[in-house]
């Protein structure tokens, strides 16, 4: 419960979170699926729901409490919320620290 998730578990958790907001679209989701900007599969409230869902699932499934929409995320030139892959990298960084995650 309090073991930190690995990169595959984080990616699965994000797929599930996006699918919960977009029912019936889960088979179409890939790491490259856009969450923000042109071509995004979500509207602005959809993105809010996904971010909150990822936070809540991290807490429930792995006992990890974190805030995804923090200053670090908001101040980056390239938003970590732009697609599923970048969000997974960002969550990995938050959970394990920058040195253990893939550099952006």
């Amino acid at each position, binding site marked *: 419960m309090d073991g930190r998730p690995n990169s595959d578990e984080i990616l699965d958790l994000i797929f599930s979170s996006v699918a919960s907001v977009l029912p019936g679209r889960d088979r179409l989701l890939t790491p490259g699926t856009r969450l923000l900007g042109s071509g995004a599969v979500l509207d602005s409230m959809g993105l809010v729901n996904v971010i909150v869902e990822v*936070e809540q699932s991290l*807490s429930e499934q792995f006992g990890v409490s974190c*805030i995804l929409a923090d200053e670090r995320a908001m101040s980056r030139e390239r938003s970590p919320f732009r697609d599923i892959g970048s969000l997974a990298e960002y969550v990995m960084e938050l959970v394990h620290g920058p040195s253990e995650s893939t550099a952006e």
Partner: protein
Amino acid sequence: MGPPSQLRNSVVLITGTRKGIGRFLAGHFLRQGAHVEGCSRGPSGWEHPNYTHHLADVACEEDVLKMLASIRSRLGKLHILINNAGIASMNHSLLTPLESADRVMNTNFRGTFLMCREAAKLMRRERYGRIVNFSSVAVPMSLAGEAVYAASKGAIETLTRVLARELAEFGITCNAVGPAPIETDLIRGVPAEKIESIVQALAVRRLGTMEDVSNIVDFFVKPESGYITGQVIYMGGP
């Protein structure tokens, strides 16, 4: 999913339950069979089988996240949040230390914001929630000597109205109660003549009671009050 059919099945989170209005409201909901979670910076000093106390500073993000994670893992839901915790600092603005201003804004505004944000994330799952914030008659009365306190409560009113719009799609209402002076520690340091002048300026010229507060809170948190949001109800007619 959705609203509890009665208060008996509700999970209620109240901040500042060690004493005063928070403690009274905790007892009020416990008597009706609700499960109550409460918090304060120190131990509660009282117990009840359906009450869980958290040692938490509402202005500390880490404390708030920990408290909500505990509620999520143990109960999985939250129906009602009552943001009662608050502090006051009565002084002329020209004699108000910056540290006092920061402390009042931190507990009153920052604490209310953090609690609303994290509680709404949990309420969102059930597509149902009732949030009651605490303003004060000091806001509409623009009370001299209460500049920072009134400003912090004014900020809470604006927060309440904006959250009402942002959270409506999750089935969450957000309202505020504005108490008149009540016999609690909050006004203990205020000169009697100052309290009397406030009371004399109210439509109903008496001190407020805990029951006056719970009456308004009860209205806001009823399942039937889903169409009541973004409202502030003041006690006594300021």
